[in-house]
């Protein structure tokens, strides 16, 4: 057996003891490198390769014992606490949707099945290998873009914002929930591409932004834009593009500032009629300030515990009877007290804080980008939904994750949360692909013209 085969055999024996498949390559490489270093040191001391290798292996110790010891340390990290939080949020969602299904204007279509299915989707994504997202990063971007463009062309009536996917309608606003993740994957595929990579990433932001710009609520565009620029800043800061960091930050900042200015102008243009009623709804409670005024009125008259039915203004309650699916949290507060809101906020904060902490601890850029895009999507959805339900939502929210009415958002959020927890579960052993610097066929070094025929 050749000397290097002995090293491979030893490393294989160590790896065989480790039950977690994903951890094996990391450990294999580290042990192999150590043995090679040790072997080289013995060779430098005068041993031949065979003797040096044998001595290095002997110095390392029993492969089975080392493997068994390492096996104790390397296990996937179960995310039970976060799974429980998701479970509670989905349960609250099922409960409140069941309650509103009894209201006079309901279409009486409540079923527990979507909630069970959403939890199954969540668990499937939790056990899925998130690294596959990285493997097909650019393809996922392209497929999503093509799908979105076709949808835009087919769905001429943007105002209805519906794509008909058999057998139920899929609300296209909710596609915006996956755009941040898809954009993060595109950024991931731009590794080592320098300022060209930054430029492509910046340009890649626009097609989805344009699609969202055409869809009624600005919430999707706001969510996508904020997440996309945080991801870009994060990637530049991590030197993911391998270019001058200052130059990268300037490039991203210029586009961010232009987008921000354009966003503000567009926002003022779109919401010019609502802005003043939003600030003083009592003066405009007959028209544009109606919803703001009534929602705030319900909240102000709510109790901490229990129903405030008897003290509420009947006109305000009328909103809940007609638009309960849009204001589920408000209805929950009205029926059971502000305590429900506090409970949901506490759960959302817990989930967000743990999520952000775990995201920042990720070693791999893929893990960081995937988790970051998802946790920001979650946090922004929560903030917008709470503001909306309290009567302070100038921009209509998309959904309160897992709680709002509507199955599209429920399934998308369940899948996203599952992928994020998959990162936390197995992310520690994932390594961003290490690419060897490729040598060109012809190079000129130290006065020599080198033609590399082997290309290795």
């Amino acid at each position, binding site marked *: 057996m050749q000397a290097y085969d002995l090293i491979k055999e030893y490393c294989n024996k160590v790896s065989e003891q480790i039950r977690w498949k994903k951890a094996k390559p990391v450990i294999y490489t580290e042990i192999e490198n*150590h043995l090679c270093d040790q072997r080289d040191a013995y060779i430098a001391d005068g041993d031949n390769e065979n003797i040096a290798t044998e001595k290095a292996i002997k110095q*390392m*110790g029993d492969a089975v014992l080392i493997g068994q010891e390492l096996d104790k*340390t390397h296990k996937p990290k179960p995310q039970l606490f976060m799974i429980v939080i998701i479970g509670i949020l989905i349960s609250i969602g099922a409960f409140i949707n069941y309650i509103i299904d009894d209201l006079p204007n309901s279409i009486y279509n409540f079923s527990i099945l979507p909630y069970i299915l959403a939890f199954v989707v969540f668990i499937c994504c939790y056990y899925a290998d998130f690294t596959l997202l990285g493997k097909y990063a650019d393809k996922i971007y392209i497929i999503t873009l093509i799908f979105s463009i076709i949808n835009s062309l087919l769905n001429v009536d943007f105002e209805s914002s519906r794509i008909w996917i058999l057998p139920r309608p899929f609300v296209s606003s909710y596609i915006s929930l996956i755009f941040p993740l898809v954009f993060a994957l595109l950024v991931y595929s731009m590794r080592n591409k320098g300022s060209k990579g930054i430029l492509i990433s910046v340009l890649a932001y626009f097609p989805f932004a344009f699609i969202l710009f055409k869809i009624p609520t600005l919430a999707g565009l706001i969510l996508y834009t904020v997440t996309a620029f945080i991801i870009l800043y994060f990637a530049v800061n991590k030197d993911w593009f391998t270019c001058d960091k200052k130059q990268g930050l300037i490039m991203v900042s210029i586009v961010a500032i232009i987008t921000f200015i354009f966003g503000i102008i567009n926002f003022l243009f779109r919401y010019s009629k609502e802005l003043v009623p939003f600030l003083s709804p009592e003066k405009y409670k007959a028209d544009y300030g109606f919803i703001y005024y009534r929602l705030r009125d319900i909240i102000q008259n709510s109790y901490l515990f229990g129903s405030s039915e008897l003290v509420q203004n009947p006109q305000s309650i009328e909103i809940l009877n007609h638009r309960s699916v849009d204001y589920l949290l408000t209805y929950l507060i009205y029926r059971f007290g502000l305590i429900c809101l506090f409970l949901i906020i506490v759960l959302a904060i817990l989930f967000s804080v743990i999520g952000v902490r775990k995201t920042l601890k990720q*070693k791999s850029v893929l893990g960081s980008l995937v988790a970051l895009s998802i946790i920001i999507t979650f946090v922004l959805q929560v903030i917008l939904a709470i503001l909306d339900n309290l009567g302070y939502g100038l921009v209509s929210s998309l959904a309160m994750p897992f709680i709002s009415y509507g199955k599209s958002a429920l399934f998308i959020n369940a899948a996203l949360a599952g992928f994020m927890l998959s990162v936390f579960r197995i992310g520690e052993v994932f390594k961003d692909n290490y690419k060897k610097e490729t040598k060109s066929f012809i190079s000129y070094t130290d006065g020599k013209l080198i033609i590399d025929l082997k290309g290795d």
Partner: protein
Amino acid sequence: MPIDKSLLTGSTTTLILKLLEEKDMYGYEMIETLANKSDHTFDLKAGTLYPILHGLEKKELVESYEQKADNDRLRKYYHLTKKGKNLLKEKQEEWTVFSNAVNSVLNGGLSYASV
């Protein structure tokens, strides 16, 4: 003089943390540095080092990153975290108390420091 290995067992973690306090190192480098600094009194086996290092990483006392070496080998470097620094401080204090107590007994009840 050969040293009883059981004397080293309890202090290996402290020694590793101490090495990393000075600079980030990879496994092989740690073994070499420890051997040189202790005049080969502590010839740590690689098979002992790696399970300890990975355990320390899991407890967030050290963190690792990869760096390409001159020979194109990808090395895994270990870095002492803030949590690791705090533990090292505690372990060093613990060791001072322990060694003073042992010396005190070995020197017939006198504190080594006061001799």
